[in-house]
């Protein structure tokens, strides 16, 4: 591949001293080991060469060589190459340069490892707590190996997250953790000047369950797909597939073509029901409940179809390492054809009915605008990026499963607003139907659905896999372990980068449009927060303790 050589030479020439080694796992994956001092320069060089930042992976390697590892991962969309930039810092002085000032999307990843591993990043613009609860004791870093998986420190009162300072002349509107337009608990503090949003701070992750730690310590390889599937309430197969592919890449396992086709079908069925769900939710958020009822009515047969194929309407449980668990028979193929045929017809009716509706246009056009350059700078993914004229799609750029044989269009729109995300998702649903039809026609008739492994998976191999979820790009990073279980498993859901772009989308929009803008990224977050009392005159926020709140609510008549 000329692409890999080009990147390799570029890095070796520019950073002769810093680059320790370059490993090519296969033509699409490369691992570069560098010294930690140069991490910021090398990252910038990779981005300058056309790399798009994905996620960072930190891991505890103290038992082996006394270091904490850090991996920044990048994707070269044009060449279809994933690059993992590996470095490490000694446990005694776990400090390295932050890459966030140049690559803003790395902000959360770095904050995550400040919390979970106790690393320090010099030059980080916002070194606040991200993942851990506010009352979690200082100095206890749960992802380190010496911390037991079931540690539960006692809860503390009178600790609170300090919100970012409110811009002058603005008031704070707290949105969440419980709010009619938010479907999961999360907290946005929105700074408004009159009705116009001037900024926002986000506090989430409070229902962080530590499943990465749980799976690394308690479960074995083939149990993790079932936990992975439950990361997301809508796109479960995506996570299971991504995890399984990461392990398969790390262990050099080749699965049968038939299994890859079945995985593709399941992923696309999931995309149909996820996009229909989103369309309904979006309609609901702008107060257009007809869209909500009708798109969910159309969606229901897909759920029943999933139940007939896999045994469950949402948590398919189909995908394990080595292939899939259940076969798709000829009767099932006819069943799938019938169901997607009906959906195509009915969705066309819905599309025609809503496309010309001026109410929808007024609520979504020009709302949540970000320029294409900002979208690239913030490394946003999925329909959010495609609606802002960034032409990326994992299925086409880094083909996995059976996507290399599929013919489909990637819709890209350039109006850079919420309306474009509606269009992207509508077109993608029709494309998904097209892909399923191709899969059913081309699927090889023989071959096992599950490839058995002859030997255990070798330890300490790295695997990086990405899957295009309905919401965007899901990245899973696996380091294989010795005890038939992953040593490190890192999940990056598409909402992780997209949510970091939300403050930018909200900027200078109206307060009434906040729900649909947040909704337009199809957010999938879990978090809790405490309640706030805001003094509107001074604009200062005061956090009420539980005791005060109880008193307030009891005394009020």
């Amino acid at each position: 591949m000329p692409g890999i050589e080009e990147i390799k030479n570029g890095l070796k020439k520019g950073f002769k001293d810093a680059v320790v080694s370059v490993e090519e796992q296969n033509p699409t994956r490369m691992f570069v080991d560098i010294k930690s001092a140069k991490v910021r320069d090398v990252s910038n060089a990779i981005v300058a060469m056309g790399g798009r930042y994905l996620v960072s992976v930190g891991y505890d390697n103290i038992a082996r060589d006394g270091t904490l590892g850090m991996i920044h991962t990048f994707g070269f969309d044009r060449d279809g190459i994933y690059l993992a930039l590996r470095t490490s810092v000694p446990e005694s002085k776990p400090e390295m340069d932050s890459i966030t000032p140049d690559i803003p999307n790395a902000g959360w990843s770095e904050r995550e490892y400040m919390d979970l591993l106790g690393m320090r990043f010099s030059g980080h613009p916002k070194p606040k707590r991200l993942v851990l609860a506010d009352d979690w004791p200082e100095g206890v870093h749960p992802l380190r190996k010496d911390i037991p998986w079931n540690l539960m420190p006692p809860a503390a009162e009178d600790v609170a997250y300090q919100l970012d300072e409110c811009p002058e002349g603005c008031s704070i509107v707290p949105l969440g953790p419980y709010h009619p337009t938010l479907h999961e608990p999360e907290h946005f503090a929105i700074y408004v000047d009159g009705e116009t949003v001037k900024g926002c701070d986000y506090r989430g992750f409070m229902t962080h369950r530590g499943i990465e730690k749980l799976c690394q310590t308690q479960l074995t390889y083939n149990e993790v797909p079932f936990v992975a599937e439950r990361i997301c309430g809508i796109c479960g197969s995506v996570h299971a597939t991504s995890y399984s592919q990461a392990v398969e890449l790390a262990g050099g396992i080749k699965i049968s073509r038939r299994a890859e086709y079945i995985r593709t079908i399941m992923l696309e069925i999931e995309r149909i029901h996820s996009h229909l769900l989103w369309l309904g939710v979006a309609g609901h958020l702008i107060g257009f409940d007809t869209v909500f009822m009708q798109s969910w009515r159309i969606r229901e047969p897909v759920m029943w179809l999933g139940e007939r194929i896999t045994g469950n309407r949402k948590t398919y449980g189909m995908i394990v390492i080595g292939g899939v668990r259940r076969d798709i028979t000829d009767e099932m193929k006819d069943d799938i054809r019938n169901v997607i045929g009906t959906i195509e017809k009915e969705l066309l009716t819905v599309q025609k009915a809503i496309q010309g509706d001026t109410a929808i246009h007024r609520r979504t056009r020009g709302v949540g605008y970000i320029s294409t350059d900002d979208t690239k700078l913030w490394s946003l993914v999925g329909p959010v990026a495609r609606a802002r004229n960034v032409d990326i799609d994992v299925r086409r750029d880094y083909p996995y499963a059976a996507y290399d044989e599929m013919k489909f269009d990637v819709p890209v729109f350039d109006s850079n607003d919420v309306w474009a995300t509606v269009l992207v998702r509508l077109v993608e649903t029709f494309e998904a139907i097209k892909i399923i039809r191709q899969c059913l026609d081309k699927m090889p008739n023989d071959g096992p659905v599950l490839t058995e492994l002859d030997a255990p998976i070798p330890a300490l191999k790295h695997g990086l896999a990405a899957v295009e979820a309905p919401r965007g790009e899901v990245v899973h990073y696996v380091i294989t372990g010795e005890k038939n279980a992953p040593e490190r498993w890192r999940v990056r859901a598409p909402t992780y980068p997209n949510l970091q772009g939300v403050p930018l989308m909200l900027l200078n929009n109206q307060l009434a449009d906040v729900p649909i803008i947040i909704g337009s990224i199809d957010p999938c977050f879990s978090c809790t927060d405490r309640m706030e009392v805001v003094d509107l005159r001074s604009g200062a926020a005061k956090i009420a303790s539980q005791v005060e709140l109880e008193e307030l609510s009891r005394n009020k008549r």
Partner: protein
Amino acid sequence: MWLTSKIKQVFMVAKPGVVTLQYPFEPRPAPENFRGQPYWDHHKCIGCGGCAAHCPARTILVRDLCQELRVMVYDGSRCTYCGRCADVCPEDAITMTASYELATGSKEDVNETMELFMATCQRCGRCYDHEITNAIDRMSRIGFKYDSLEMRAVVPVSSEQFDMKLYEKTEKIKRPEKAGE
């Protein structure tokens, strides 16, 4: 523009009409392949413990009361109905039934307990690993025999020999306590 799309919307709503199902007033049987409540056939079970070793939710517990008596408990209150137990069972003793109306006031209603008489094996004594050929599905990590049935706690310690001291220790095993309880 506005009016035509409203007319189209009326047709979109009127054509399918009412689609609400009359469940629970009308029964709604699950499809053939449904992964419902698992059922253990104690005639077929050989007590190998493969299901316990592969349960992602750790709802299946194994405890040896003595050399000959093994108790297996399925705790349905935490089951995720993934059906892996049925997949890996070498004797096909577990079936995923179509029953899904499992709401109950008592957790005991969804549990299943089996007391199995274990014949003394003259050979390796590892029936499960003998049957399963997939290297990734070998029973390699989780130990069993010593799970704490009362506390519903899996004891992840493996031992070749029956260890009386470990057995006594597991009687006192507790789940991690939540703050404030």
